[in-house]
């Protein structure tokens, strides 16, 4: 890992993103220094997943203006897999199902994709089992087909397992809390907390404040209608929990869903 603490790992400048010619992000500016946890909150449809997808280079999301730099590199020039190998990671709100591909074989290939030398099968097995134990996952999980027939909670846990195994430098967690019961939420938060501290920058995208009780953010940003309208400390999340998004205007009316 190259970033040192306090240095800005991710820098987003005036980012505009369109989906099917509709502008969803209308100038987002955000910095996530290495080692910090930032929360992005906002009502449904405000563009949170759009930001996550655009950061990772999803082809359906057109960046029409603005810049994104990660570790000093112009990310928008890079393909999705290059971004991943640079150290970016997205825990999906809706992970895709890949029938016939086992969790373990997929993860080994993914891990090898970002390593100079291949990890041995044995060493990988050990690493995987260790991380699965940390997340209290049944070892049988490793030989299931990737996301196929997973419950909502299993999908989310599987995303965090990948995060733990791949050890990126920036983790974007898109609504990882939805679909998790309170115990699972604790385990997942625990996993994330163990990874934080050193160089890992985290962007926790969430609709509710609940997750932030377990993963305490350094900063909180509020996204309304494709713009960051307010930023603050963790007390901002508590205030949003109490007051909702109404104070930011009519555009936020679709809050509950």
């Amino acid at each position, binding site marked *: 890992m190259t970033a040192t603490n306090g240095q800005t790992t991710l820098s987003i400048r005036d980012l505009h993103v369109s989906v099917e010619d509709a502008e969803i992000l209308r100038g987002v500016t955000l910095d996530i220094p290495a080692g910090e946890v930032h929360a992005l909150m906002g009502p449904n449809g405000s563009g949170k997943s759009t930001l996550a997808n655009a950061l990772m280079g*999803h082809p359906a999301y057109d960046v029409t203006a603005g810049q994104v730099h990660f570790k000093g590199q112009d990310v928008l020039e890079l393909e999705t897999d290059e971004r991943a190998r640079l150290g970016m990671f997205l825990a999906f709100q809706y992970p*895709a199902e*890949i029938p016939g591909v086992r969790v373990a074989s997929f993860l080994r290939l*993914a891990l090898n994709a970002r390593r100079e030398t291949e990890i041995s099968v044995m060493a990988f097995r050990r690493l995987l089992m260790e991380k699965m134990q940390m997340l209290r996952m049944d070892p049988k999980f490793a030989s299931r087909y990737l996301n196929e027939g997973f419950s909502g909670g299993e999908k989310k846990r599987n995303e965090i397992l990948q995060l733990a195994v791949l050890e990126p430098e920036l983790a974007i967690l898109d609504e990882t809390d939805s679909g998790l019961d309170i115990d699972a939420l604790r385990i997942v938060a625990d996993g994330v907390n163990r990874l934080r501290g050193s160089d890992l920058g985290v962007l926790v995208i969430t609709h509710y404040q609940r997750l932030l009780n377990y993963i305490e953010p350094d900063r909180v940003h509020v996204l309304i209608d494709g713009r960051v309208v307010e930023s603050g400390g963790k007390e901002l999340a508590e205030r949003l929990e109490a007051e909702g998004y109404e104070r930011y205007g009519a555009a936020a009316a679709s809050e509950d869903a």
Partner: protein
Amino acid sequence: MAVKDIDQVGLDTYKFGFHDDIQPVYTSPKGLSEDIVREISRQKDEPAWMLDFRLEALRQFERKAMPTWGADLSRIDFDAIHYYIRPQDRQARSWDDVPEDIKSTFDKLGIPEAERKFLAGVGAQYDSEVVYHSIRDDLEEQGVIFLDMDSGLREHEDIVRDYFGTVIPNGDNKFAALNSAVWSGGSFVYVPEGVRVEIPLQAYFRINAENMGQFERTLIIVEPGAYVHYVEGCTAPVYATDSLHSAVVEIIVKEGGRCRYTTIQNWSTDVFNLVTKRAVAYRDATMEWVDGNLGSKVTMKYPAVYLMEPGAHGEVLSIAFAGEDQHQDAGAKMVHAAPDTSSLITSKSISRKGGRTAYRGYVQVMPEAERCRSNVECDALLIDDRSRSDTYPYMDIEESDVAIQHEATVSKVSDQQLFYLMSRGLTQEQAMAMVVSGFIEPIVKELPMEYAVEMNRLIELQMEGSIG
């Protein structure tokens, strides 16, 4: 996905496309005639009944029209083909005795190495003749016979005469008739009652000469309670002109016996591959065809199982992969001729770069074949919009007390799947290969480990250069 134009890359990923400059000891002139059929039989010093079988087949071949219901076969020029090419005088029993240049071909293909590692026996056919054959001593002692078909006829004429042409008569279809007229090489396998051959027997088929027709003939007899797994692999050089491969495989599985026949067909894309494969299964016997079709220009192949007595079970597991200018017309045929028989057909096809796959299946239940069960599942995966897949499931059910299921799906690799895998650091090619290997996993996991690895490697090779 930001897919770059496939043709920009245009990599030829077929790594078996080299050929050797070998002077065969005999090459029949191009074209087919009674003289050529007689000459083949004379060179092989065959009994009169076999010559009669060949000549009758030749008449059948000439009488039959070309099939028009499947792939386009109009490019086959029967007059431009050498029907018999004998690469050497004698067959080697020791690998060291195989002529150097032929040996180097098989070395490049990794053959004797494979044998040393995990096979019970190996046969290697080069053009028309089997150049090498071996079987483990312990199996030979148990009475297992694994020979090339010509030697089988010479050394075990009594057995061969009882079964040869009984499952697939010499006039069964135009290409079976052609094979019956000019057949050469192939395998003869006999497994005595109760003997279980736990590790596979493998045959390797190589076409080396240009404008070659390879017509191997395989006969497998599994006596009651016996088991064998036979594996064949096929490759050929890349030439500008077409070659023809037209095999006939007949299998008899007796009471309580089991036979698995695995094919990894990876012919170069100038080979017309028109093969007739059929098995009969008796009481409580099991016949399984595992069929991987990756190569060839055109393949038409529908492995069949005739379920003759109660308790017989037939399976076809097939994978077809069609790339540019390839047409894989593959499928299965199950004939339920007795009550309480069951069959399972699982077909997976992948088309890309404008390639075409078809599943053509036929399930027949004869009158009074009660309580039969048949399950057909065929899934097609399209890699791009230019490619094509068709399903032709035919059913002929003449009994009402049966359980027949048919399911067909067509899917595309979704952007969402590719994005997900790439977001973990996989390149687009790796991501695509992963989706494809997942798609065929239900079949690949049925292959012996070494072949499963090989299959996945071939798929990765196929996917190379398929995307930007």
